[in-house]
């Protein structure tokens, strides 16, 4: 299969994708990767001639939402082109073979080597990882084998990034992301719930064009997609700076498109390129649609970004609705009350037992208590 490489352009031409469409796609990829325009040509050359690398898509504790996001891109420009570039040998949701035949295609690919792995879903580690098994093998076992021999591993979604929803407190299955389950591999994280298919595609295009994964931040997320905060590129940012905020859902300010900061928008805490790339072929994105960001591309966002409609997380150990500012105000009030009481007692004491020291100072203390 893999040695047959008729050239992407020919394949696309047969499907009615013109060279013009193809170059538009290459331009969009260069723009997403924040590359200068001269790289459009290089991307086009690389994609037109590259040997189709085999790809394995593993699903563990997931909802298949990342697959859905990737496959539901409407025009041929994103999903189809990448699916034509790549030789997807294993993807549980969309592959034709089933049962032993499916397992065989995975085994064959692993044996051959030089493949890319995309991991979707978290990996349970508690009780020897029995909470997710495929074909009798645990997710941990499969991940170690498949990711361990891959040329590179891409995680898509929050679950494969750090554990996602299954990892949220109390994390009953001991779910972790690929980074913790299989340490030391060539890994790139594309978190999000779901991640933007444009970013997945752009990462693959970068790999095919330059033969390497794009530069990442300290959490292993590519900088082209996760290098800036949502808040700093948001279309509602001017309203934030102006102090114009939505106060409750459906009020006049919400209709006017003001900033969602007070409604708990986590844009100021989240690194992602949603405001510029947007979802569903650039149609819209959460804040554009009038709902605050929930911070889905950050570590432990179910725990640290919730409550989603409030500014700060709740403080553990202080009841459900206790926020830092209420507790802080309570502390200040408590301290003030305690010292007020101390002051009253001190005043009574000073009146009843004047300090002997003052008498010997030669300083007249008369009238002090008067």
């Amino acid at each position, binding site marked *: 299969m893999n040695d047959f490489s008729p050239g992407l352009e020919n394949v696309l031409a047969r499907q009615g994708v013109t060279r013009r469409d193809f170059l538009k796609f290459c331009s969009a990829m260069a723009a997403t990767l924040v590359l200068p325009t001269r790289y459009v040509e290089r991307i086009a050359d690389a994609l037109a001639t590259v040997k189709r690398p085999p790809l394995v898509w593993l699903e563990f504790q997931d909802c298949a939402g990342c697959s859905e996001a990737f496959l539901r891109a409407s025009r041929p420009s994103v999903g189809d082109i990448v699916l034509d570039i790549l030789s997807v040998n294993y993807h549980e949701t969309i592959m034709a073979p089933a049962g032993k035949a499916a397992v065989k295609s995975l085994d064959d690919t692993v044996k051959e080597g030089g493949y890319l792995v995309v991991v979707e879903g978290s990996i349970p580690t508690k009780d020897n990882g029995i909470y997710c098994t495929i074909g009798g093998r645990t997710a941990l076992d499969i991940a170690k084998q498949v990711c361990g021999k891959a040329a590179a591993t891409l995680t898509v979604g929050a679950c494969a990034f750090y554990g996602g929803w299954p990892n949220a407190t109390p994390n009953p299955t001991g779910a972790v992301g690929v980074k913790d389950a299989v340490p030391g591999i060539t890994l790139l994280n594309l978190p999000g719930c779901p991640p933007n298919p444009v970013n997945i595609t752009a990462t693959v295009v970068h790999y095919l064009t330059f033969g390497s994964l794009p530069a990442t931040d300290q*959490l292993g997320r590519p900088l082209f997609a996760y290098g800036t905060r949502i808040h700093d590129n948001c279309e509602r940012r001017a309203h934030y700076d102006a*102090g*114009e905020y939505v106060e409750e859902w459906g009020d006049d300010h919400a209709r006017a498109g003001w900033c969602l900061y*007070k409604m708990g928008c*986590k844009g100021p805490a989240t690194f992602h390129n949603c405001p510029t790339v947007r979802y569903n072929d650039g149609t819209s994105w959460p804040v554009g649609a009038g709902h605050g960001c929930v911070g889905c591309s950050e570590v432990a966002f179910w725990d640290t970004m919730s409550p989603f409609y409030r500014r700060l997380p709740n403080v553990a150990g202080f009841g459900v609705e206790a926020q830092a500012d209420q507790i802080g105000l309570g502390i*200040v009030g408590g*301290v003030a009350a305690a010292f007020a009481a101390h002051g009253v007692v001190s005043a009574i*004491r000073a009146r009843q037992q004047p300090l002997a020291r003052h008498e010997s100072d030669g300083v007249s203390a008369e009238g002090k208590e008067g």
Partner: protein
Amino acid sequence: MLRRLYVWEIPVRLTHWVNVLSIVVLSFTGYYIGNPWILVSAREWYGPYFMGIVRFTHFVFAFIFVASLLLRTYWAFVGNAWASWRNLFPFLTAEGRKSLGDALKYYLFLRREPPEVVGHNALAGLTYAVIVFLYFLQTFTGFALLGEVNTEGIWYKLTGWVFVFVSNQVLRQIHHLIMWLLIAFAVHHVYAAMLIDNEEGNGLMSSIFSGFKFVHASLLKKVNNKG
């Protein structure tokens, strides 16, 4: 007899008041940034950029505060005995431990006489150790949150590693809580100063303006002998 003694040097007093001013400004602007409760009319000249102005003010005073902390830290090593960093750790010396016990007993009404000291008492010194630690945490969390605006900038380079361990939302929460702890400290601090000023009659309140305290001749002799 009481003698007039120069205790608080100029850098000590200067940084004290710069800290007061910047903590007040930082608390108000910081609270507004966390919860912008004032709705500013767009017709006001400052309206179209109100949050921007508040944040700018917050950052400017943050830098002033840090400059003050740096000066005070320097002075803790080169200043006089009452400005020294040693005051933060009274439990290191036997004298300090005794003073610590005496101060505690005095505050708990178990002892009538407040401990006789020239600078601040051992319990106050220990409290300042906690406050210095809170200042450090507050500065660090502040710069870490500021650094996220530009991940190529110096502040992110210095503090960004923390986000591997702590979520920025939790850091924000800590930043809020420390503000309240510092306000609670300010309540305690002003009360304790009033109490000691009243009880010791040493001119404590005016000393933070003038630098001079009034101490007993006997205590002064002890200080001179030690010096």
